[in-house]
């Protein structure tokens, strides 16, 4: 009896290489005669470029070339924005290297190409740039004022959207309770551990680009569009990629410019960013001001919700910049039933690094706002925050359920996840301790935060993307090839960078074809090998790419069935497939899939119409998003003397549908929770009034280490998705989405007796202390 692979905690196939240093990070790669590129970057947030003089740099030892933006003006095109969310959206020209004007600190204004990176760094010091300063535009509200300086000629408003469902006015009219809050989603720096790197080479006709990217396929198309180099002459390779979290879901200036440099010089070039360069120039995440109004009945039932966002685009619209807040548009209503909903969003230009996808992308922001407001509603009514949620959430027997924002949730069981989480957490006991500390006036107060979240993921049904005016589809592709010796090569269009696709896909294929786990290899991340794909982001890989693998296996089995029937002289209908073999029903006669692979290879005796290969291709395009959900609970201790917050315990019960590999699922949840906690407590990209980024290094932009986080207690419920044959829902973003509001709710819960109902993120000790000082006075 073969053990079913799906559901097993298989150790990862990816690990050995990564653990022994036999890695292929882009910066590890080299080519004969490789040249090193470095970029000179604007120290000004907003300025006209009066002149750039690279002549002194050109003369330095080891320097092969030096260029300014003017040198690329005719060929560099404009970096793409693939998601024009409205018809009248303003999409400014975005030259990879600034030519006339810079609009954020860090924008590239010149580059040097040298024989090694030390020479290149020296040459940067020799470039002279004259800037004529223009006023910085840093604050979104000020940017929208009529007298604000303009970031672009067309003004500072990129787009405006309003979506209404139900009678909002009626919902708020005479509502017994209206909660009105404004939350700030601070700007974040994604901080994947591997800094970006790009290498480009050419044989004179064709080009190969190696990049630390999440999206080799999208990048290939876009490089062709931007540079005019024909798509079939560009090959993009994503070698080992050290994390992304959305930050490598981008078509970057450096990728375009390295390709152009390889073409211009006819030589291989490589650029690797330093961390401080990356903090300035890897797209940032979040950065919204959220005005949220919620109307409810006296018993806590939600009547309506009104959301008005300002979303900071930064200086330009990059690949999916304007789409990020729109990914939250249908998520503010979350798991709750209500009569009316209105969502409004204004995208605003500022002289800062553009924002774009960061783990969760629009959905963490939405979840934060609604989960914070639910706690405020509970407090207003003197109700337990879990109870107020219970009164409003969709009950498990009500699925499938079409929400007020128009999504249809296929499945879920919020009751089960919440009950499990409350028990694991020891909710009642912690509430008792909280009451005791309050009574005693303990300087260290205890707070309990809850977050019952869902997300739409598995991006995405192509039809829905089309309706949202997104520039591409959301399908995924896979190929499965049976090799002559019975081993299996799987080619996936997803592009993993830490998610363990090689392992999970092997488990899926092992079950589907009845072959040993170790007999499966998975290839990815090279457009010459994985020729079709939509890449990895938005918790989509398993939900779409994994299902494509299943579909490809199904096709392989169908071919194999016809071949087996031919060889065993029976009807295909007489065959049953189990444990990797086709058996003639009621007999001992069988052919294993490996035998059939060999038979297809030799092709000595193939039936009519069966090709000499047991291979197949499939694409999968889902009908609907998937909707993982879960209940996260956080207990936080707040030192009211210093403002310091310490997380004492954290429980997460997630429902991600069917679990392919529990180790990988837990790892994703743990990492996601850590990132969400980091937003709540530690991280913020801070610009000063002149548009200078103050958090350019890891010494200033605080990322938590092991010493700053607790252990997390995880468990699961499993309500399989009905929208795909695997029943999977996606897990890449769940932890990040759920944890931020759980932590802030805990902090506010601890401080509520003091009359405090919000702390702005990150909830630094100083902010907590100031809030307390404000009410003590």
């Amino acid at each position, binding site marked *: 009896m073969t053990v079913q692979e799906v559901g097993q905690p298989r150790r990862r196939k990816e690990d050995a290489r990564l653990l022994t240093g036999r*890695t292929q990070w882009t910066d590890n790669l080299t080519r004969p005669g490789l040249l090193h590129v470095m970029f000179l970057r604007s120290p000004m947030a907003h300025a006209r470029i009066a002149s750039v003089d690279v002549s002194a740099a050109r003369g330095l030892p080891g320097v092969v070339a030096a260029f300014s933006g003017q040198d690329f003006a005719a060929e560099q095109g404009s970096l793409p924005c693939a998601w024009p969310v409205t018809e009248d959206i303003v999409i400014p020209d975005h030259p990879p290297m600034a030519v006339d004007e810079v609009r954020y600190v860090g924008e590239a204004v010149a580059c040097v190409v040298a024989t090694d990176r030390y020479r290149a760094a020296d040459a940067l010091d020799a470039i002279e740039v004259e800037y004529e300063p223009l006023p910085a535009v840093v604050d979104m509200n000020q940017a929208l004022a009529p007298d604000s300086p303009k970031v672009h000629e067309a003004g500072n408003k990129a787009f405006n959207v309003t979506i209404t469902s139900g009678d909002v006015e009626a919902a708020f009219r005479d509502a017994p309770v209206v909660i009105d809050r404004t939350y700030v989603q601070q700007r974040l720096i994604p901080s994947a551990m*591997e800094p970006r790197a790009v290498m480009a080479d050419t044989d004179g006709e064709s080009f190969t680009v190696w990049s630390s990217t999440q999206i080799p396929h999208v990048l290939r198309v876009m490089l062709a569009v931007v540079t005019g180099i024909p798509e079939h002459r560009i090959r993009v390779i994503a070698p080992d990629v050290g*994390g992304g979290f959305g930050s490598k879901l981008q078509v970057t200036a450096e990728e375009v410019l390295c390709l152009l440099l390889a073409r211009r010089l006819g030589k291989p070039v490589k650029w690797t960013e330093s*961390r*401080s360069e990356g903090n300035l120039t890897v797209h940032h995440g979040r950065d919204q001001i959220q005005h949220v109004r919620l109307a409810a009945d006296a018993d806590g039932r939600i009547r309506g919700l009104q959301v008005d966002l300002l979303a900071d685009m930064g200086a330009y619209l990059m690949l999916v910049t304007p789409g990020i807040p729109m990914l939250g548009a249908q998520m503010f209503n979350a798991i709750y039933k209500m009569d009316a909903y209105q969502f409004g969003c204004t995208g605003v230009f500022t002289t800062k690094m553009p924002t774009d996808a960061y783990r969760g992308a629009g959905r963490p922001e939405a979840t934060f706002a609604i989960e914070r407001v639910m706690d405020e509603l509970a407090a207003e009514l003197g109700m337990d925050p879990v109870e107020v949620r219970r009164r409003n959430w969709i009950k498990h027997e009500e699925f499938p359920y079409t929400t007020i924002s128009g999504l249809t949730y296929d499945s879920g069981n919020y009751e089960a996840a919440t009950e499990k989480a409350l028990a694991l957490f020891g909710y009642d006991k912690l509430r008792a301790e909280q009451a005791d500390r309050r009574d005693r006036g303990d300087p260290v107060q205890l707070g309990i935060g809850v977050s019952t979240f869902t997300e739409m993921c598995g991006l995405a049904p192509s039809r829905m993307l089309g309706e949202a005016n997104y520039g591409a589809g959301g399908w995924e592709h896979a190929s499965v090839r049976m090799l002559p010796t019975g081993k299996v090569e799987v080619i996936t269009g997803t592009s993993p960078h830490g998610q363990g696709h090689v392992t999970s896909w092997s488990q899926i294929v092992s079950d589907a074809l009845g072959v040993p786990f170790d007999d499966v290899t998975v290839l990815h991340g090279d457009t010459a090998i994985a020729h079709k794909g939509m890449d990895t982001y938005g918790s989509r890989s398993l939900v779409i790419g994994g299902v494509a693998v299943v579909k490809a296996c199904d096709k392989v089995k169908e071919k194999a069935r016809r071949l087996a029937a031919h060889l065993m002289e029976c009807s295909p209908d007489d065959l049953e497939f189990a444990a990797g073999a086709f058996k003639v029903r009621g007999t001992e006669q069988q052919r294993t899939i490996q035998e059939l692979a060999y038979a297809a290879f030799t092709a000595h005796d193939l039936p009519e119409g069966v090709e000499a290969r047991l291979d197949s291709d499939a694409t999968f395009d889902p009908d609907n998003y998937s909707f993982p959900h879960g209940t996260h609970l956080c207990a936080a201790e707040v030192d009211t003397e210093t403002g310091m917050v310490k997380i004492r315990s954290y429980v997460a019960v997630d429902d991600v549908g069917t679990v392919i590999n529990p180790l990988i699922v837990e790892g994703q949840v743990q990492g996601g929770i850590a990132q969400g906690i980091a937003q709540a407590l530690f991280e913020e990209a801070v610009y000063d009034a002149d548009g200078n980024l103050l958090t350019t290094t890891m010494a200033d932009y605080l990322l938590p280490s*092991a010493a700053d986080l607790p252990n997390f207690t995880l468990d699961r419920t499993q309500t399989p998705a009905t929208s795909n044959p695997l029943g999977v829902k996606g897990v890449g973003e769940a932890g990040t989405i759920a944890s931020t509001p759980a932590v802030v709710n805990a902090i506010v819960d601890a401080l509520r007796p003091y009359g405090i109902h919000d702390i702005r993120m990150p909830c630094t000790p100083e902010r907590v202390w100031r809030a307390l000082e404000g009410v003590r006075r």
Partner: protein
Amino acid sequence: MPRITVIVDGVTYEEDVEPRVLLVHLLRERLGKTGTPIGCDTSNCGACTVLLDGKSVKSCSVLAVQADGCDVVTIEGLGTSGSMHPMQKAFHEEHALQCGYCTPGMVMAAIDLLRDDPDPSEETIRQGLEGNLCRCTGYCNIVRAVRKGAQEMGQAVSTS
């Protein structure tokens, strides 16, 4: 240009280096030891951690000339051919890595931590790894892996 002698993963190298060359660049660019990656420029991330004369250091924070005459062990020098070091194995068993970029530094720091405390508590491990950042795992499994690696290294010592 100063000439230095340095042993890396058991091999002796003699190299002429500019004084400003960082040890990590010597390893990566000159000696092809790309198993040791670079994650930051402020000594915060610890990705480039190696053992220098038996103690953990951040190889971005040592000049190659300062390593003259020293013995360097990188992630590539752990274990024996075909067999991983118990700490590497423990990271694999406990799923203590995702993208793997911080992993070489994390493993080296973990091994160093056990020099002091062969049986560290969770708290000791968390404090001991404060100089190594991971963005993927949330550290839970790393802590578990270090506990497991410690146990296995302890057993290896007691049975040898």
